[in-house]
């Protein structure tokens, strides 16, 4: 895994002095994924990271419904009802792909064979707990899909989310109030304002976008290193 903290300049480098768009966050994540990694991109926003992964990087995408070597979204003639991603969106197949059944697919995930998984979240705790499957509202129909399997499976679990809710509440929190998806599983959180490394000794700010560590510390109310 990439562990450096210096950022190469380039198209994915924001250095804009302003918060990133979520598409720019996707580009930042793509930049941090090591060449040749096996990666699972969660349903929703994380799926867009694929658009920022140059082919020459050789990243292989896993979709938990049973495929390695997933290609871009299928359009027009390429749409095949038998070939979708985990979000049930039609996708394509790249050379060197392989299909497998669900038990093998989740064995691959649970067994720690995938390098990186990126998911969205309602909340992440400073200790790496993840909440992204259930709002906890009593009238909400719970639906977990593969989120809990992904949370405990990949070597590195990254979260891609906005740092605050629409009403301004922090989503990186000392302790999750939403029902948990996994415990202590998230190692990095990518947001529009900053990227955080969640380490045993605390939360480290990896980079900021249009804000400062001091400002983040004050807005989040958590310890930052």
């Amino acid at each position: 895994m990439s562990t450096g903290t210096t950022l190469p300049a380039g198209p994915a480098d924001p250095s804009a002095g302003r918060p990133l768009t979520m598409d720019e966050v996707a580009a930042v994540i793509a930049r941090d994924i090591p060449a040749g990694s096996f990666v699972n991109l969660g349903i929703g926003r994380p799926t867009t990271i694929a658009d920022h992964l140059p082919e020459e990087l050789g990243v292989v995408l896993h979709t938990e419904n049973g495929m390695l070597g997933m290609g871009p979204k299928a359009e027009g003639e390429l749409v095949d009802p038998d070939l979708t991603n985990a979000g049930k969106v039609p996708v394509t197949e790249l050379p060197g792909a392989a299909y497998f059944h669900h038990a093998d697919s989740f064995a691959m995930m649970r067994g720690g064979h995938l390098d990186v998984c990126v998911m969205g979240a309602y909340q992440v705790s400073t200790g790496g707990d993840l909440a992204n499957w259930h709002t906890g509202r009593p009238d909400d129909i719970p639906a977990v899909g593969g989120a809990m399997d992904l949370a405990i499976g990949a070597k590195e679990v990254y979260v891609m989310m906005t740092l605050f809710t629409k009403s301004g509440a922090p989503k990186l929190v000392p302790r999750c109030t939403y029902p948990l998806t996994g415990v202590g599983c998230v190692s990095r959180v990518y947001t529009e304002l900053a990227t955080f490394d969640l380490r045993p000794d605390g939360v480290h700010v990896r980079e900021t976008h249009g804000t400062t560590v001091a400002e983040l510390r004050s807005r989040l109310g958590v310890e930052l290193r």
Partner: protein
Amino acid sequence: MSRAAVVESTDEAVAGIEDGSTVLVGGFGLAGMPFDLIDALIRQGAKDLTIVSNNAGNGDVGLAALLAAGRVRKVMCSFPRQVDSHVFDALHREGRIELEVVPQGNLAERMRAAGAGIGAFYCPTAVGTPLAEGKEVRRIDGRDYLLEYPIRGDYALISAHRADPMGNLVYRRTARNFGPVMATAAATTIVQVGEVVPLGGLDPEAVVTPSVHVDRIVRVDTRHYTVQGAR
């Protein structure tokens, strides 16, 4: 005795499914969903069913139609809530259908355990979450695991791409999903296929489900449903 039978109709394929059965239903969303067998099951009339499937129906077809017909007592699935799962949503909110949410990988692995004769297994998924409630926890090599039990089906209804007359199956792309696992986990496995090839027409190296796991095969015309755009 246990060799697969190629039957002439989907009605014949689903004959004998008893009220109260646990039925494993293949498919992930629409891909690999055995629509024709489900339609036949609706005609057949078995009720009070427990359905094990990844989702709880899409739109008004397949599982959703079975649910709408009032035949299902309980659904075990990983992801009931979808943009087009209005049939399930309404039944559940009315308290007319029971739901057990199982993480997707556990759903697969618990059926695999049933098919493989494993009594139970310790799984790291869902530890410390609400889905761990009531489950035995065990620490192994410093990590916590939950004890998970097999999910067995009385019947499996699945869809495959091609079969040979012995019952060997191959699938197509991600429509493979739960089919091979469910085929091992049910007492009786019923398969709809797009084509039955002559004996010897499948490469033995590429067979995904060996014949021993298949009981009834029926050929159906390929139907395409609108692919939904959301999960």
